[in-house]
């Protein structure tokens, strides 16, 4: 199922009947078409169309692709940031450790979505208006990534504190390794296990965060709809009878998140030699 979801999302440009990013392809007189199996529906718009006459199936496929991409990129960003800070904090200790962990504590006392909102909002104000749509995706990635690095930093710091007391680390010092090399060559491979498990589970969280931000209107613009954007757009028409515009992207989001979560569970079991 995961493969089907991810595959469909990745293959969106080739399998989608319509290009949802190209307003010229929309036909306004086809707006609010219900799904194919209802009265007034046509096979051309299998899951119906939205207020702009955009094919919903195509939009969902593309939206899932964007959601997945943003989720993956945000997790990678958070992972690199969190792991390096956690590793350095755990290994160096002292004031650096105290500083990083206090920042982490402060950040943990806010909900992640609030942090992402804040960063997103600040970036929007700081950047010129014209560039906003173009940089919406990178900003979103950084915003979600910055709100999620704490978990990695804490996990890695904890394991680093344990690993650095082990004798193989001292042995590496005795053979003359530099601290940076010890961190990267000896400690890092031994603390990555739990991090990878967190990462797979966090992809799902990142997708939801992205959808939430887009739903709140601070994420991706309707011209490049992600699943969250589609749900928001559809929300406006929920009570006027055009329920499909919001329900189908919602179902797609749930399916995607669920399948990524299942993948994470499977990976955790596969990586844990005790369960094999």
């Amino acid at each position, binding site marked *: 199922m995961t493969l089907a979801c991810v595959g469909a999302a990745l293959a969106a440009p080739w399998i989608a009947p319509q290009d949802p990013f190209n307003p010229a392809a929309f036909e306004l007189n086809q707006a609010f078409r219900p799904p194919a199996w209802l009265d007034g529906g046509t096979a051309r718009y299998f899951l119906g169309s939205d207020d702009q006459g955009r094919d919903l199936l195509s939009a969902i496929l593309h939206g899932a692709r964007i959601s997945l991409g943003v989720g993956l990129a945000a997790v990678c960003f958070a992972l690199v940031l969190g792991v390096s800070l956690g590793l350095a904090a755990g290994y160096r200790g002292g004031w650096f450790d105290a500083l990083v962990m206090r920042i982490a504590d402060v950040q943990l006392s806010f909900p992640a979505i609030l942090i992402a909102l804040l960063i997103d909002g600040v970036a929007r104000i700081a950047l010129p208006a014209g560039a906003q749509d173009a940089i919406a995706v990178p900003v979103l990635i950084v915003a979600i990534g910055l709100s999620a690095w704490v978990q990695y930093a804490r996990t890695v710091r904890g394991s680093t504190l344990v690993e650095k007391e082990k*004798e193989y680390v001292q*042995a590496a010092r*005795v*053979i*003359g*390794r*530099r601290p940076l090399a010890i961190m990267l060559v000896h400690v890092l491979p*031994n603390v990555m296990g739990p991090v990878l498990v967190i990462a797979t589970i966090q992809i799902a969280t990142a997708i939801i965060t992205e959808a939430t931000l887009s739903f709140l209107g601070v994420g991706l613009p309707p011209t490049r709809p992600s699943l969250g954007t589609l749900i928001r757009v559809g929300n406006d028409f929920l009570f006027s009878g055009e329920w499909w515009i919001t329900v189908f992207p919602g179902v797609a989001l749930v399916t995607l998140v669920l399948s990524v979560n299942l993948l994470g569970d499977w990976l955790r079991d596969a990586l844990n030699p005790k369960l094999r």
Partner: protein
Amino acid sequence: MLAGTFVSQPLLRAERLVKHFKAVRAVDDISFELYTGETLALVGESGCGKSTAGRLLLRLIEPTSGKVWFDERDLFGLAEREVRLLRREMQIIFQDPYGSLNPRMTVRDMLAEPLALHGLAKGKQPERVAELLRLVGLGPEHAGRYPHEFSGGQRQRIGIARAVAVEPRLIVCDEPVSALDVSIRAQVINLLQDLQRRFGLAYLFIAHDLAVVKHIAARVAVMYLGKIVELADKRALFAEPRHPYTHALLSAIPVPDPSLKRERLVLQGDVPSAHRPPHGCRFHTRCPHARERCREEEPPLAAADGHSVACHFWKEIEPFTSASRLTPVNERLTRLQAAFHTGGGSS
């Protein structure tokens, strides 16, 4: 011990080394010398500071005060970079063969790492790795394996190969056999002795097991609560120990003869906390011979004919020799054994 080595410069000299962890006096003013090719054993019960002393000598931890001279170089005065270079000459073998090898590295990577770092065996690394493995009694076919595929004894051999890889002159052996099965210990000890003979290594052999020490050491330093209480040639120490603490340690060695029993000197009480060591002689709280003076005045480590002891009254304490304290366990077993021996001889 060769007479000539005493004349030469010591390879390593520890001078009034002190290491306090916050208020805990782990190592409190110890001094000793170590010569090329010899084995100095550092013995004492757990928590007496012997492992801390070993790590200080390698500058794995920084001392509170004191100096270590390695080959006439002031170890704690060197810059970080110079220490890394010097690491080629001094290595360590750890107690725990499970924690001392990186679980994510193959044996080949582990042995190649020090070679690459110090620019040794350039272009011939695979051959050198195979040679090192053979040296410690493993085979080249083990090079591609991970630590968890080996037994404890084999892992310890890999640890030894890693220490020997850079051709050091000094190896600190931090209880290298304590974690191993008794059956494996002798093999590893023999390997260490073999390597010492071949490469002229000096060992600082940290142990709590006097039976092992008796086998491998040339000189023995006995530590109690962060201090050296007795330092002597092995023979002298085992034949006529002077410090009452050493008496107690020696009486704890098992006798390898079921018909004999040694009179045990069992110490009363526990080791006092290194947090607040006793005034005067640190051993006075458990010493059967303690007097008023021991409570007030700390005895210095004083040498008499090459045998140093830190005790005010060692001359007055009845000398303890291990043989004198052996008594037959029961008459019947002795008679049986005697009959067995004569019976075997006559037939």
